[in-house]
């Protein structure tokens, strides 16, 4: 699985993408693993308490996880996960 970061998320991670070898079954554990790696600014960006932060946009293969279970969204080995902060328009 590959996780891609965009905009300010890159400043929290210090990189624009990361390959993940052990694909967790759902999004929640993946974000936990990444938060443990990147620290508090990343954690605060993706979580709001125990929930997915409403100001984060996460796509799995181009589909917003809001439509596939949020933190329960299932993940597969070849998936591409993209993480954006809420961004612009125009």
């Amino acid at each position, binding site marked *: 699985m590959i996780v*891609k970061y*965009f*905009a*300010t998320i*890159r400043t929290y991670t210090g990189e*624009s993408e990361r390959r993940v070898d052990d694909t967790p079954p759902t999004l929640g554990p993946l974000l936990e693993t990444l938060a443990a790696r990147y620290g508090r600014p990343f954690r605060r960006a993706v979580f709001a308490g125990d929930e997915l932060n*409403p*100001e984060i*946009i996460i*796509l799995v*293969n*181009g*589909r*917003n996880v*809001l*439509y596939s279970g949020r933190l329960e969204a299932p993940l597969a080995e070849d998936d*591409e996960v*993209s993480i*954006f*902060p*809420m*961004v*612009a*328009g*125009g």
Partner: protein
Amino acid sequence: MYGWTGTILRIDLTKGKVKREATDVKMAHDYLGARGLGGKIIVDELDPKTDALSPDNKLIFAPGPFTGTFAPSAGRYEVITKGPLNNVIACSNSGGAFGPELKYAGYDALIIEGKAAKPSYLWISDDKVEIRDAAAIWGHDTPDTTDLVRAETDEEAKVACIGPAGEHLSLIANIMNEMHRAAGRTGVGAVMGSKNLKAIAVYGTGSVQVADPDRFKAAVMNARKLIQAHPVGGAGLKAYGTDVLVNILNQTGALPTRNFQDGYFPTADKIGGESLAAKQLVRPKGCFSCIISCGRVSKVDNPDYKGFGEGPEYETAWSFGADCGIDDLDAITKANFLCNEYGMDTISMGSTIACAMELFEMGAITAKDTDGVQLTFGNTAAMVEMVRKAGKNEGFGAKLAQGSYRLAESYGHPELSMTCKKQEMPAYDPRGVQGIGLNYATGNRGGCHVRGYTIAIEVLQNGAVMDPRVTEGKAGLDILFQNLTAALDSSGACLFSTFGIGGAELAEMLSALTGVEYSLDEFLRIGERIWNQERLWNLKQGYTTADDTLPDRLLNDPIKTGPAKGEVSHLDQMLPEYYSLRGWDEKGVPGKAKLKELALN
């Protein structure tokens, strides 16, 4: 009057006469200003059969009631005219500082009529209005024109002007103000050029009167607080500009690529806002009274594309980038600077070049047509050269300067012009995002995203979310956005203030400013009125339901690669409901009951 100045300036360039008129109070209350007021004047005064490039067309510059106040991002004005690209009511929006200066000089609108006998410019300093000789500035690019006009008038004057493209009557010519802000679309620059009008310089010593200063201040401070707290309005746009959209649209699979042949561009990251911030950004910049500061002051050091200016916006990075198969940000930014200097709409210019690239690759045009240039997708130098040629109206550039519809049609392939009602669609693929496709198809000025920016909900999670791949609920979503935006565009506020505030906050500020009570419902009804007004004009131009459509490619050719692979637009599932919810018949004609409700003839 409060908010409004109460005065309109009518300038007859043929006779060289200037007339001051009182702003019609009822018209101001019912249409607000800018887009709505200008549109109403066009509807009332212009014979629908008028040739858009004839002296009979009227060219209106109109700010809104908010313009020039300290309401957030209150710097907007519109240029309204019969658009030569496609005969609609062209209502092109711009920021900067020109609009506020018009208010300070004392005007709710400038109505420019006729045609000057020779190249001229207007110098408006409060009550004093002069029509001056522009022989010395005709032919100059927009930055030089601005400098030269200020030197002859006042260094503090704000200048709106055309570049060589408007002088050549390019159907995609724009009007630039403060050198870097554009009233971009639908060929408004050509109308100005057709009147032999090179520039307008304005300087004002007045101010905007507020009906209830305490209430206005409270409403404004609340609005500013909401925008500041919003992740986009308060931080995101300042950090990355609109170009930050490249990656999210690409990762959604809806970044139109190579003239909409595909929806995914593998090297998109090289042209997105992150790359722009890292490589070219000098500093962010905001318009009058704006804390959002989405503007980019940028520079390119690469000697091949050296330049300094503002931009590119997302639409521009897309049109010269993914749409042309190009991932060289230096070249894209240079193309952006050139468009500003020559005075051309970046969306239509890039999309027209992309159309030409497809025609070239399929052999419909050859190097003989393109002055020896190998105009293929990905050919960076060719793209930049074509922008220059179009700006100068030279060789093949003269064809490009008339937009993709006329270009493609002249070579027997109108289906390859990615337009709606002859205006180029912007940077969102309707096959990957259903609601924006409906907006393109029903847009009164043709292919346009800003007049019904459903992307905010379908992709950007701004306040609400709707799945971009479904059609359910999109008709209602489009209508809401189109109505709200029409009212907002007529008020003088900036569209980006909606990253933070909505109709309720706008209505409250407007009420406090003008002393006229506007509920949210009334504010939206004004927007609906303006939308229907534009629709009625289009029907008179001969537009029918057959024109509320998308290119065949988007209806029938699935996206080839990326996350939205296999998708097409399902416009047919949304359009009937759209008509019905709008109170129109099955042919898209507004019904009598709806017109009565909106007080339209």
